[in-house]
Structure formats: structure tokens, C-alpha cells
């Protein structure tokens, strides 16, 4: 049998050649070609395709086989996966030459960040103010959809203006078509616990002081808590409720302002309630929070241990299921001090700057984020549409609890603030302010909150300037 190679040296050389060739192959595969560049301008906008095919830029029928990828954050489990697949199937039926690949992602930024780095983002990508939207914008993950909107005259009048401006770049070009607005202002309350305490149910006229008084009255040490957060970071919503503004501009801030008197008053009250064991959350665990039952938020409320819970609309079905009808519950809008707002999260879909088929990606964005897509999603209970008419037509007529959900949702929509869009916001606000405040809540004795926030603001300004 003839040897594969003549000698070991020659084989070694060939081996090295194979290694180098493999390296080159991988380097080529990992590299971006010019068409993937995040700086590339969107292709010329096309007219809206209405049925079965799409006109190309010359108005001719475009039957080219196209495959588009759609990446979305899956918060709705299998229900949402099925729904998104149905949306894709409907789109493929309308456009037989298009194949839609859905990519549900459960850990959004961890998955998307390397894709941004490698230029391999899906054609259609999800964006949420509460999950790295500002970082994605800063890294040119989205391409502007404004040229398509202008070209088609796409009607955006149904959307709240403030939401559209929040999803636009500083030049005013829309990057993402929003389909959901979740406000964290649902104050769920356990009617049975209120009845037992002989207290009136909360209503929309409640002030924050009313909420605090009722929470104290409903608390029983180590057994029952008057008030709770669905998750710990809702202390930021609590601060907003007092009128606290974290920055000098809601969308593109240039300075941190989270040390103003309303912010200080908010954290002082919260700290006091926490140390009294009135509020049920992780940061108050050592002051008597959480036990019995270590379920933060919804679990504690559903277990009948918490009289009032701050969360969003999506919590209601879970509460109904987990409480098993052990008590009656409803929700009212969380009380706001003058100038107070509600922290919220808005989501939408946009066209990625890596897309090879931005025209089709835009078509798909309209398909799922437009009014029809929103209505379908709202009927399924997955999303809370930002369009008032859809709220009225679907959400407000639904029998699902809580009975007051329409009133609460509309109040939230009118008062919601989203996370500002600044690349420095993460290190400046989350790493400094949130970290410092958390440290204050668990400190052995109540800190001087004014001094703590003043120092934090100075740190934010020096280390992570916004301008």
C-alpha cells in the first residue's frame, strides 16, 4: 500500500497548510462582508406589498426566493412561540417566495450582543426599552425604517407620539415600530384581606400616603405584608411615583437628576417601610420581608401573604391560577404624587442593520407590529397594545381579571416613562445609582439618603457622563 505522504516532514508541512487553511476559512466565516456593515444605509424603500408578491424598486413583480430571520424575546413561553409561528405561516402564505425563520430568544442581550459583534443579527429584531434597546441603538443594530414610512405614507397616527419619539434616533428617524407598552402601575389588591381589616378598597383617587397607611394597617409581623413588589427593581417605579426624575431628559438625557428632593423622599419612605417589615421584597428580607414563602412578588400575593402588589397586566392570569380562587382580587392604578410617573417597558420590532433583505424585513415588521398584528396579540393576551382603539376594542371588553384593567392600562399609558437612551446609562445609572440604593436599603442602619444620592450622582457624572 502506498503511503499517504512521502515522509513525516512533508506530512507536517501539509498538516500546517491544513491548519492555516482552516484558520482562513473560519476567519472568512466570522468576518463581515460589506453588505453586513452596520453603517450601510437601507436600500431604497419599496411600496407596500399587499398580496402574494412584492413589487421591487422598479415596480416589477419580485419572485426571488428570500429567507428572512426574525429574532424575538420569548416571554410568553410556548403560547408565544406558537403565535409567532402562526404569524410567520400567514406571512409566507401571502408571500410564497418568502421563508420566515423564527428565532425565539429567552436571554435577549446575552444572545444578541455577540450577534451584533459578528454582524449576524436576524433581519427582523425585537427591541425593548427595558432590555438593552439603548445599547442596541448605540451600536447601530437597527436600520432606520423612516425611509419606508415616508415612501409609503405609512400611517403612524394611531401610536402615541411620545412612544414614537422614544423609538426614534436623535435625528427623528423611527428605528422600531412599537407593538406593546407595559406599564408597571397595576396595584393588585386582595379584597379579602381588606375586608378582614375593615378597610376600604383602594381606588384611583388614592394618594401615596393612603397606600402607605393601608399597607401599615394590613401588615402582621412575619405573617402578612401590606405591600410588595413583583420584582426588586420596581423600587425605581416607586421613586417615579413620587415625581422623581432620574435624568434631565426622558429620551436623550445629558445629566443625572436622581438626587432631587422627591427622589430622596421616595427612598426614605421605602427604606422605612422596609425596615418595619411592611413591604415584601428581597431587599427587605433581613428586616422581616419575604417569609413565610420565599416567593417574591406574585407568589407571595397569590399565597395570600401580601395585601397589595405592584406589577403589570400580565400578572393577573398567573395570580388567578396560583391563588386558586382562595380570595378575590382586583387592581387600581398605582397612586401618583403630583408630577409622578410610572416606569414602563415598550417593545417593538425593527429592521436590523445586518439584514440582506431590509425591504422584506420591513414588510414583516408591519405584519407583526402593525395594528392587525397588535390586535391578534392582544386577543391572545400576550401584549398590551399602545394603540388606544385596540385597547378599547379588545383589552377593555375582555372578561379576564382584573375588572379595572382598562382604566389601569390607560392610566399607565398616559403616565409611563421608559428608560432613557444613552450608552452610558448602564454604568452611570444601574452600576452606580441602583447599586448604591440597594446598598442603602440593606445597610445596618438607615443611611443619609440625600448624601448617598448626592454622592452617587457625582460619581455618575464623573465616571459615566451622559453628554
Amino acid at each position, binding site marked *: 500500500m502506498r503511503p499517504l505522504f512521502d515522509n513525516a516532514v512533508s506530512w507536517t508541512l501539509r498538516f500546517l497548510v491544513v491548519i492555516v487553511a482552516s484558520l482562513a476559512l473560519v476567519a472568512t466565516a466570522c468576518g463581515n462582508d460589506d453588505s453586513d456593515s452596520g453603517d450601510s444605509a437601507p436600500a431604497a424603500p419599496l411600496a407596500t406589498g399587499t398580496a402574494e408578491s412584492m413589487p421591487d424598486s422598479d415596480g416589477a413583480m419580485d419572485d426571488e426566493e428570500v429567507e428572512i430571520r426574525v429574532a424575538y424575546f420569548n416571554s410568553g413561553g410556548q403560547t408565544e412561540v406558537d403565535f409567532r409561528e402562526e404569524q410567520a405561516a400567514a406571512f409566507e402564505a401571502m408571500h410564497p417566495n418568502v421563508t420566515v425563520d423564527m428565532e425565539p430568544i429567552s436571554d435577549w442581550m446575552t444572545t444578541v450582543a455577540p450577534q451584533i459583534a459578528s454582524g449576524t443579527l436576524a433581519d427582523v429584531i425585537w427591541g425593548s426599552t427595558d432590555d438593552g434597546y439603548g445599547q442596541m441603538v448605540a451600536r447601530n443594530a437597527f436600520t432606520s425604517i423612516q425611509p419606508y414610512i415616508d415612501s409609503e405614507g405609512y400611517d403612524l397616527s394611531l401610536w402615541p407620539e411620545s412612544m414614537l419619539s422614544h423609538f426614534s434616533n436623535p435625528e427623528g428617524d423611527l428605528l422600531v415600530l412599537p407593538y406593546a407598552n407595559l406599564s408597571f402601575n397595576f396595584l393588585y389588591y386582595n379584597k379579602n384581606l381588606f375586608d378582614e381589616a375593615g378597610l376600604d378598597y383602594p381606588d384611583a383617587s388614592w394618594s401615596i400616603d393612603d397606600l402607605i397607611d393601608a399597607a401599615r394597617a394590613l401588615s402582621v409581623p412575619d405573617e402578612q405584608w401590606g405591600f410588595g413588589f413583583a420584582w426588586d427593581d420596581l423600587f425605581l417605579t416607586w421613586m417615579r411615583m413620587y415625581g422623581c426624575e432620574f435624568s434631565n431628559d426622558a429620551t436623550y438625557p445629558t445629566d443625572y437628576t436622581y438626587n432631587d428632593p422627591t427622589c430622596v423622599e421616595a427612598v426614605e419612605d421605602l427604606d422605612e417601610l422596609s425596615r418595619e417589615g411592611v413591604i415584601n421584597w428581597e431587599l427587605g428580607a433581613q428586616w422581616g420581608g419575604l417569609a413565610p414563602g420565599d416567593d417574591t412578588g406574585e407568589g407571595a400575593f397569590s399565597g395570600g401573604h401580601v395585601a397589595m402588589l405592584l406589577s403589570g397586566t400580565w400578572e393577573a392570569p398567573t395570580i388567578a391560577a396560583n391563588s386558586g380562587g382562595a380570595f378575590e382580587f382586583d387592581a387600581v392604578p398605582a397612586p401618583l404624587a403630583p408630577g409622578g410617573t410610572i416606569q414602563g417597558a415598550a417593545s417593538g420590532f425593527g429592521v436590523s442593520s445586518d439584514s440582506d433583505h431590509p425591504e422584506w424585513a420591513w414588510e414583516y415588521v408591519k405584519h407583526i407590529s402593525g395594528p392587525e398584528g397588535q390586535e391578534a396579540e392582544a386577543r391572545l393576551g400576550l401584549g398590551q397594545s399602545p394603540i388606544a382603539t385596540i385597547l378599547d376594542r379588545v383589552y377593555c371588553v375582555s372578561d379576564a381579571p382584573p375588572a379595572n384593567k382598562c382604566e389601569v392600562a390607560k392610566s399607565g399609558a398616559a403616565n409611563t416613562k421608559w428608560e432613557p437612551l444613552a450608552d452610558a446609562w448602564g454604568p452611570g445609572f444601574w452600576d452606580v445609582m441602583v447599586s448604591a440604593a440597594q*446598598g442603602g436599603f440593606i445597610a445596618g442602619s438607615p443611611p443619609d439618603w440625600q448624601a448617598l444620592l448626592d454622592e452617587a450622582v457625582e460619581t455618575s457624572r464623573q*465616571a459615566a457622563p451622559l453628554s
Partner: protein
Amino acid sequence: MNGEQVRRRLLSRRRTRSRSKRLSASRPSGKLARRESRWFYFFIAPWIIGFVFFGLWPVVASFGLAFSDYDLSSGWPDFIGFDNFAKMTDPVQGPILGKAIRNTLYIALLVIPMQLVFGLALALLLSQRVRGMAVFRTAFYLPTVVTGVASLVVWIWILGSDGLLNQGLEFLGIEGPVWLRDPATVKLGIVIVMVWGGTGGMMLIFLAGLQSLPTELLDAAAVDGAGAARRFWHVKLPLLTPQLFFNLVIGIAGGLGVFTETYVISTDPGSGAPANESLTLIMYIYRQLLQNFQAGYASAVAWVFTATVALLTAVQFWTSRRWVHYEYEN
């Protein structure tokens, strides 16, 4: 050198020479050798390629990135000298990194000694001649082979306020904390989980060491009147120092590199919740890389961490000459 020593050395040399001759005789030569080497390279190539791409190259690249300003998702690395290292002490990163280091040390300083002590104790118990010992050995080693995330989910339930541990404590009249939710106890909860998961591996190493102990030494000690405790402290333990040393090196690297446990047990994975009390050094690096996209800075922290672990390992090797006893040395 006395006559006996000379004889031993000569015998030793003769044995070495004859062994070399045997090896040389059994080694293929010429075409056969070349063919063997080709096949050797052929079969090892996938591993080498994988190592170069996914092991060596990232390590080399991260060293370069440590001196660069590089946003993971855009641009090209800009050389900035030691700025990333200086950033570790700035007013923003300094306090958080300091907390991550303190948390990591707290966990490691509790976990490593406990794993060593429990591992050795279990190995001593499992080296006894008892009917059904294989079942016990399997049971105690099982936590090591169970997938980390799966066992952590179980531990989240065990360490819950109404979980198994607190129910046991309640039986003793002690009101247990909410281990993994309370800022005051979350690290202790992680320690419990890590000790449970890591002790089996150490136990196995100790058990292997115990089973290879020369019985003549133990018998000699017994004949000389040494009791069980004295035989353990003066015979078994010194002879187990190679295993102890190995477990210590591995334990320190693993203890300082804790990540999975802290990631999974949090209600908000990767956040270090509650209040950064479960934030460890590796999670801090993860946060900088995949949440803040600061690949350059994350690489710098990773290299400082690597250098620290390497230094600790070097110190252990250096000190091991004083306390690790290899049987063949005598």
C-alpha cells in the same frame, strides 16, 4: 556513600539501562514510525484545531484586548495601555468590583476547607470494609456527576423558606432564613450548594489515595502501639498529602471561579441579586462583557483574575515541597 548505597545505585542504573534498551527495541523505526506519526497527527488534528481556535486563540486575543478599548459589538480595538487596569479602581467600577472580590473570597474561603474536610471524612468512612459499600460510594459521588443546573433547581427548593432545610431547622426549634433571597444569607446558601456539589469529587481522590496507602506502614504503626487517631495524623494524613495538594489546587481554582451557582440561584440571573450580594468575580466579568459589552475591560479583569489564580497555584507548588510527601521519595 556506603557500600549498600553504591550497590543500590548501580542496580538502579542497570535497571534504567535495560529498561531503555527494551523501550528502544519495542519502538518502531523507519516507515512504520513515519506511518504511526502520520496517523497520530491525523487523529489528534481535530483536537489541535479545536484547541487553537477555541482555546489558545481566545486566550491570546483576550490578552491583547486587555490593553484595548474594545466594545464587543462595534468598532475595532484601540490600544489604551493600562487604562483598563486603572478602571478597576475608579469610582464606578471600584466599589462593585471590590464587592465581587469580597463575595468571591467569602465563598471560596468557606467552600474550599469544607470540601476538603468533608471529602476526607467521607473518604475515611467509605474506605471501611462494610457490606454494600459500593452503594454508599455511588450515593456520595452522585452529586458530582449530576448536571449543575438541575441540582441547583432542587437546591432552590431545599433552601426556600419552607424548604427541606428550614423544615429540618424548625424541627430543632430554629427559624431558618430565606437562604437564597436574603442579602444576609445568600452567600451562605451558595456555600451549602457548592460544598454539596464539590465534595464528592474530592472524596473520590482521597478514597483512591487511601486505598493505595502502603499497609506495611499502617501495620507497623499499629504494632508499635499507635491508636487510630495517631495512625491517621502521623501516617495516613502525611501519606495523603499528594491528594490533599491536588484537591487544594483544584479547589482554589474552582472556588474562585464560582459562576453557575450564583447565576442560577438568582431570581434575576446574572444580576448578583439581592443587592449584588451574590455577585462574584466571574459574574462581574460576564456582566461587563455581555451586558455592558466592555470586552477590553472584561479581558483585563479576567487576566488579573487568571494571574491571581496562577500566582496562588505557584505559591501552593512552592510551599508543597515543605508539606507534601511522596512515597517514592523515601
